[in-house]
């Protein structure tokens, strides 16, 4: 392929005087805000469930579940897996109505939270007017009112906000109100000086808040928080009133931590919006000078210590620095990332609990929460990193690797802490909510690694941003990041839950069945194709014009250093072919599988081989190209995995197997999802100081490294086949490869779905005693696995 896939250009030294337009792309704060709102609302699910359990409805539910258990069909000692699962299905069907009622209560908690917050939001403006003694400007201050209207028109607002003046105690201007009825409250010291130096920059700043919908963001987050403080205090108050404090040890700290994190998140978002409002309101030199002077002479001291974390405004000196050097605004912080990870982590299990509650909905228990939270993670983390990547094209800096490390560490820490801190874990026997305290690491590590992949994709896209509009670049950032995060969340939470409830046996089954579902394969394939298309665009050293304020200097024309060098396809092919050759070698040495169990074991192991080939290709790219390698690895994983699978198909045909389209289609993508999950985990290696695509690598080196890693991965998977898929009792029944994908695998998938259904049901039944829970795990999970 002649088109260079990965640019190796070092950062282009930006000429002096270039000012990046960081507002060309939407700020990730909107997504962070939605994530915060989502997290706050999801805790309404807990409140609803708690109300259910504390009322007669909870007693009815418990009685029904016990009755359904009592009616569970008797299963003979040597019953088949199907018989055990049928018995379990019977119990689930029996309790469906009661479980649905429980789910409605949980959703009712969300509705109650939403309505209460809406009412509060609606009356907040009246409360503000009264408490701050705000009044219309009146004829004496008509000049101020007219000036505000003129500035609003100048800044393109369709409707000028109402202008009010506060009492002598009001010293800072602020905005409030509801969409369509916004108002700006001016301190009297400003209102009387409509021609003063402070008036225009201050009012423009407030108008920028109004135009950017910051008012709604700020006050709705605050309203929701107030409502939730009240609602989440209910279990404590009721518990104390009834002298039943059994829930407090596992509840109080989680609720407090969650509300504390919400405060930090809200404050962090608002501080970011202040920077944005400053830049938005001061887009010309004179305006920047006026605002900078006003901020510099404010005399406000620096905020220190913990107050800095909860302050709604950055220090004036920081704002002046940001005005002068807006590129700094594009740098994402570890704290913001940690809070985003925390909020995502506490929200996921709460959402999952709704779907786990109702037996007929458990099939969505991992998918829907991931689809809801993943895009928010993508638009938060992805957009921030992609914005930095393209801004660096203009500033000539190279802070993306450090930023990716910072963000990944934040996401990892936040997600790790968030899992045990989720209100969904209230009532569980352990602090982490899982049987092994190490299990929360799976999701945290996967998301941390995904951050590097997303950052790498941002670097690759920034290399090609000259060919994209700001909107196109933003859309691509959100689409790729969101899909990737959603996929990783889905896979990681499913495997974590599987490991927790079913151990290694259920996990290996899940890897070769549920994780290979067509939808998952299609998602990974779509991601790979999208990245391949992106890679196929020729990179350009020059930044896009939209990321520079004003006209780009002539010296920023391409200088021809964008050589481009890596063909991700070569790496993928090398790893995939090496893996396929290992399968061939194994087949030649070990001979044909003679029993159904052997065939099953080999198929299972080959899924790991396919995934391993993908992992090998991705790792090769990371090792040789750093962040860009992590981004390009997404495509390489799919190509390598598909190549290995295709090799297996050819080998199978060569040894007399049937070649059908259905078989090929089913095999080709089988290793993609698991391969991508492994790659996401392995992408943590991109945190090491690998060169970030500086200097061309010889093609032979790429191929050799990829082939070596691919061969090692495949050999390892084949050698570990007894661990991956232990051989069961030998039967005389034999299956062809075609039978495997057309009848055996779907059957296992169906059985496994039932197992997951049972696992989810046990997981959400927090009212069960530990011994009762253990009994159900033995009966509904371990028993079917053992007889398989």
């Amino acid at each position, binding site marked *: 392929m002649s088109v260079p896939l990965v640019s190796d250009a070092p950062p282009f030294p930006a000429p002096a005087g270039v000012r990046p337009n960081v507002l060309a792309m939407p700020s990730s704060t909107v997504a962070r805000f939605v994530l915060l709102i989502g997290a706050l609302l999801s805790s309404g699910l807990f409140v609803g469930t708690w109300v259910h359990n504390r009322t007669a409805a909870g007693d009815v539910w418990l009685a029904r579940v016990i009755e359904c258990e009592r009616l569970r069909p008797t299963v003979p000692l040597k019953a088949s897996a199907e018989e055990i699962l049928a018995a379990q299905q019977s119990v689930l069907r029996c309790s469906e109505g009661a479980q649905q009622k429980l789910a409605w209560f949980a959703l009712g908690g969300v509705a109650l939270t939403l309505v209460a917050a809406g009412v509060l939001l609606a009356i907040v403006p009246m409360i503000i007017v009264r408490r701050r003694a705000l009044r219309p400007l009146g004829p004496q201050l008509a000049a101020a009112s007219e000036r505000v209207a003129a500035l609003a028109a100048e800044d393109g607002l369709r409707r000028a906000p109402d202008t009010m003046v506060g*009492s002598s105690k009001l010293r800072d201007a602020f905005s409030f109100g509801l969409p369509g009825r916004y108002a700006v409250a001016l301190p009297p010291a400003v209102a009387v000086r409509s021609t003063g130096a402070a008036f225009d920059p201050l009012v423009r700043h407030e108008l920028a808040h109004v135009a950017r919908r910051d008012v709604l963001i700020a006050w709705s987050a605050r309203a929701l928080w107030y409502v939730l403080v009240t609602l989440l205090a209910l279990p404590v108050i009721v518990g104390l009133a009834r002298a039943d404090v059994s829930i407090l040890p596992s509840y109080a700290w989680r609720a407090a931590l969650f509300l504390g994190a919400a405060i930090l998140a809200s404050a962090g978002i608002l501080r970011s919006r202040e920077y944005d409002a400053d830049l938005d309101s001061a887009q010309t030199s004179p305006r920047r000078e006026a605002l900078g002077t006003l901020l510099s002479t404010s005399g406000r001291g620096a905020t220190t210590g913990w107050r800095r974390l909860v302050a709604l405004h950055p220090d004036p000196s920081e704002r002046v620095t940001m005005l002068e050097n807006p590129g700094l605004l594009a740098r994402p912080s570890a704290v913001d990332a940690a809070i985003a990870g925390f909020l995502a982590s506490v929200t996921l299990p709460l959402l999952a609990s709704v779907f786990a509650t109702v037996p007929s909905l458990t099939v969505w228990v991992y998918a829907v929460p991931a689809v809801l939270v993943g895009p928010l993670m993508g638009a938060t983390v992805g957009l921030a990193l992609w914005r930095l990547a393209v801004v660096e094209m203009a500033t000539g800096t190279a802070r993306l690797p450090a930023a990716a490390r910072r963000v990944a560490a934040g996401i990892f820490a936040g997600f790790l802490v968030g899992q045990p801190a989720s209100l969904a874990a209230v009532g569980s026997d352990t602090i982490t909510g899982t049987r092994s305290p190490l299990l929360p690491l799976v999701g945290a590590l996967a998301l941390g690694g995904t951050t590097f992949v997303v950052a790498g994709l941002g670097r690759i896209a920034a290399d090609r941003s000259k060919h994209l509009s700001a909107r196109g670049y933003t859309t691509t950032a959100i689409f790729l990041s969101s899909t990737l995060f959603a996929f990783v969340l889905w896979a990681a939470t499913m495997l974590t839950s599987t490991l927790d409830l079913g151990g290694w046996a259920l996990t290996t089954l899940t890897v070769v069945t549920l994780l290979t579902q067509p939808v998952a394969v299609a998602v990974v394939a779509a991601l790979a194709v999208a990245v391949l298309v992106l890679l196929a665009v020729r990179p350009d050293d020059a930044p896009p014009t939209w990321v520079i304020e004003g006209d780009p200097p002539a010296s920023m024309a391409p200088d021809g250093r964008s050589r481009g060098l890596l063909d991700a396809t070569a790496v993928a092919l090398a790893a995939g072919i090496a893996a396929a050759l290992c399968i061939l070698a194994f087949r030649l040495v070990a001979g044909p599988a003679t029993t159904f169990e052997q065939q099953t074991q080999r198929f299972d192991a080959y899924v790991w081989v396919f995934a391993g080939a993908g992992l090998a290709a991705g790792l090769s790219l990371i090792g040789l190209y750093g962040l860009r390698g992590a981004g390009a690895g997404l495509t390489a994983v799919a190509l390598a995995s598909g190549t290995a699978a295709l090799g297996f198909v050819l080998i199978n045909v060569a040894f007399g197997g049937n070649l059908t389209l259905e078989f090929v289609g089913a095999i080709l993508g089988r290793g993609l999802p698991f391969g991508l999950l492994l790659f996401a985990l392995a992408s943590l290696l991109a945190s090491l100081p690998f060169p970030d695509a500086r200097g061309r690598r010889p093609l032979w080196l790429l191929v050799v490294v990829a082939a070596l890693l691919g061969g090692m991965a495949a050999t390892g998977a084949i050698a570990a086949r007894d661990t991956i898929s232990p051989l069961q009792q030998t039967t005389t029944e034999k299956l062809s490869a075609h039978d495997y994908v057309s009848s055996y695998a779907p059957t296992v998938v169906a059985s496994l779905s039932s197992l997951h259904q049972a696992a989810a049901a046990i997981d959400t039944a927090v009212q069960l005693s530990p011994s009762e829970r253990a009994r159900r795990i033995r009966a509904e999970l371990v028993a079917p696995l053992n007889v398989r």
Partner: protein
Amino acid sequence: MSSYPEILTQPDEDALVRELAQQVLETTAPEELAIFDVTAEEYFADPQGVLDAKNRDEAVGFGVELALITPYILAVAKPVIQLLATMVGDAVQKEGQPSVNGFIRRLLGRREPGSPAPDPLTHDQLALVRKVALERGQLIGLKEDRAELLADAIAGGISVAPTT
């Protein structure tokens, strides 16, 4: 320091404080005169609350505090009026002046047409007035340079107050 409450009632004192403050505002921040009455009412209702208004760090606010100078002038004017009342109290009784209130008003340049001009304060008395104003300004948190300016404006208003 006594404010001679028996000869200067609280309403009289407040009125004099307002007059002195307005006089200072005319030269230092005339734009604030547009809302002087409202500001003064708020100040007299809760002087400490107005002077020590807490930084609320308003959501979607500007983030920088901009305060009226009027409450500070009122705060500084109050001890100045009280000092003037102390200074002129004896003279009023000795010279049979109608009231301390009228005497101070004339010192501030608010002399009724036809009434005799008051004896100007001595240089030492003016220096004391300036010192009290400066100390009060510093006490309520004004920066040194602003406190100096305000003290000068107040002392200057008394010594060179034009007749009306």
